[in-house]
């Protein structure tokens, strides 16, 4: 308890760059920081620098809609995210930082026969892997969310839902800060406002990076730069099967508790939750064109508002306070690209689409293991970049119509 009142720095001020590190992590978001954290914690590797071109958590880590869940469609995905949820459940205690993980439960609504089939597919895969996930009908939906419009006289009547009790929302910034503190306390350096401008290689293996603050030599480089993955990997001449899109969200003014479960409608491309502060946090699908310009659009607000009110007409007079935008790497099969590349010592965490935040702890754990042992952990073997050359895609596409 004494820590509550004692003012103690979360992390040291940025130091000078050293000429050499064992591992350089590009990207100070949840993936980069988590990887650094587990390198130190699980493997004792601490001669590590996390380089962030802006402030920590400035990218997707601080812009996502904070949903954590494991109810994926593919066994590979579900197994992977199951581990992630388990790690998230313990993470607050592990980091000694309350991440305000609110496991309210997660409902993916089905508005059509096809929607029910997709929900069933996911529930079946989940149950076989021991993930709490099932298809429920309107009566049970009404119990979980009495406020939702479950009548038939709406455009898209709710027919059923995939219910995932352990799905939840978490304070995303806290995840960043908790990891950053853990990383810093284990001696790893965090370098905000440090941009990587080149990746040096010799004979097909990484030897260092160039930055706006000078060169660094290192044996391993990890790119964990959602949205900018293509540009970072270009520096190592590693092509990626990725396009970059914007994803938007908004919050409303804070209201008294109204909604105690996370609602996702893939048919209507909207997801809605209410934070512990009382704001409604609402998002939609990625914009269909590729762009690096993270600007917010007005049609998104109209679209998301229209669909929110289809489900919750009571929110008509609730006011939107703030909208924002983040960049997403989208891969052809909506599954991540994780692990080794053809450049020795250069690993990636990319292609997360809209799912990256949910995976931070397990990405950190597995990438750290890869760096420490040189072997790709079985859990992430299906997600290697190599799969696009061998035509062994891991398709979350059917479930990805929107599921946050």
């Amino acid at each position, binding site marked *: 308890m004494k820590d509550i009142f004692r003012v103690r720095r979360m992390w040291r001020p940025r130091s000078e760059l050293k000429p050499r590190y064992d591992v350089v992590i590009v990207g100070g978001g949840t993936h980069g920081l988590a990887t650094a954290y587990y390198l130190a914690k699980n493997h004792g590797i601490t001669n590590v620098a996390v380089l962030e071109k802006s402030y920590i958590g400035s990218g997707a880590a601080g812009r996502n809609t904070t949903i954590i869940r494991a109810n994926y469609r593919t066994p590979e995905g579900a197994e992977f995210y199951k581990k992630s949820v388990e790690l998230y459940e313990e993470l607050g205690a592990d980091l000694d930082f309350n991440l305000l993980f609110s496991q309210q439960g997660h409902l993916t609504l089905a508005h059509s026969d096809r929607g029910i089939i997709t929900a069933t597919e996911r529930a079946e895969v989940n149950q076989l892997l021991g993930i709490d996930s099932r298809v429920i009908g309107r009566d049970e939906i009404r119990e979980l969310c009495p406020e939702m419009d479950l009548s038939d006289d709406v455009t898209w009547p709710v027919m059923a839902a995939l219910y995932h009790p352990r799905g939840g929302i978490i304070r995303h910034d806290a995840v960043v800060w908790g990891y950053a503190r853990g990383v810093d306390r284990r001696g790893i350096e965090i370098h905000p406002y440090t941009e990587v401008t080149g990746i040096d290689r010799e004979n097909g293996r990484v030897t260092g990076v160039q930055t706006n603050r000078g060169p660094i030599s290192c044996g391993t480089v990890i790119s964990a730069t959602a949205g900018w993955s*293509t*540009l970072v990997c270009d520096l190592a001449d590693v*092509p990626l099967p*990725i*396009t970059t899109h914007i994803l938007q969200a908004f919050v409303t003014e804070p209201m008294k508790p109204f909604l105690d479960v996370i609602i996702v409608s893939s048919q209507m491309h909207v997801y809605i939750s209410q934070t512990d502060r009382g704001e409604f946090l609402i998002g939609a699908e990625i914009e269909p064109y*590729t762009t*690096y*310009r993270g600007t917010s659009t007005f049609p998104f607000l109209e679209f998301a508002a229209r669909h929110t009110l289809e489900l919750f007409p009571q929110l008509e007079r609730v006011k939107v306070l703030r909208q924002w935008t983040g960049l997403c790497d989208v891969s052809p099969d909506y599954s991540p690209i994780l692990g080794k590349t053809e450049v020795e010592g250069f690993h990636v965490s990319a292609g997360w689409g809209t799912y990256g935040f949910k995976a931070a702890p397990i990405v950190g754990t597995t990438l750290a293991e890869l760096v420490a042992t040189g072997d790709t952990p079985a859990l992430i073997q299906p997600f290697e970049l190599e799969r*696009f*050359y061998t035509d062994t895609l891991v398709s979350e596409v059917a479930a990805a119509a929107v599921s946050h």
Partner: protein
Amino acid sequence: MSFLLACPNCGPRDVNEFHCQGEVTIRPKASPSRRELSEYLYFRRNVAGVQREWWYHRMGCEAWFLAERDTRTNEVLSTELPE
């Protein structure tokens, strides 16, 4: 209403009237190897800069055309019907 795009037939219109097919890719000429085929099917340059891309005027003249757009600013530099 995001950025505007000048349809070669209809003139400047809101981006939401269009469908974006993504960057122009080069289709292999002969029987490609598995690797060449994968590169064509999945891998994209995804440039931060001027990109040549396919657009379709879905809510308009229903024509496909090519645009040069800067993906850093969404500024559309030119549009043209395919030759």
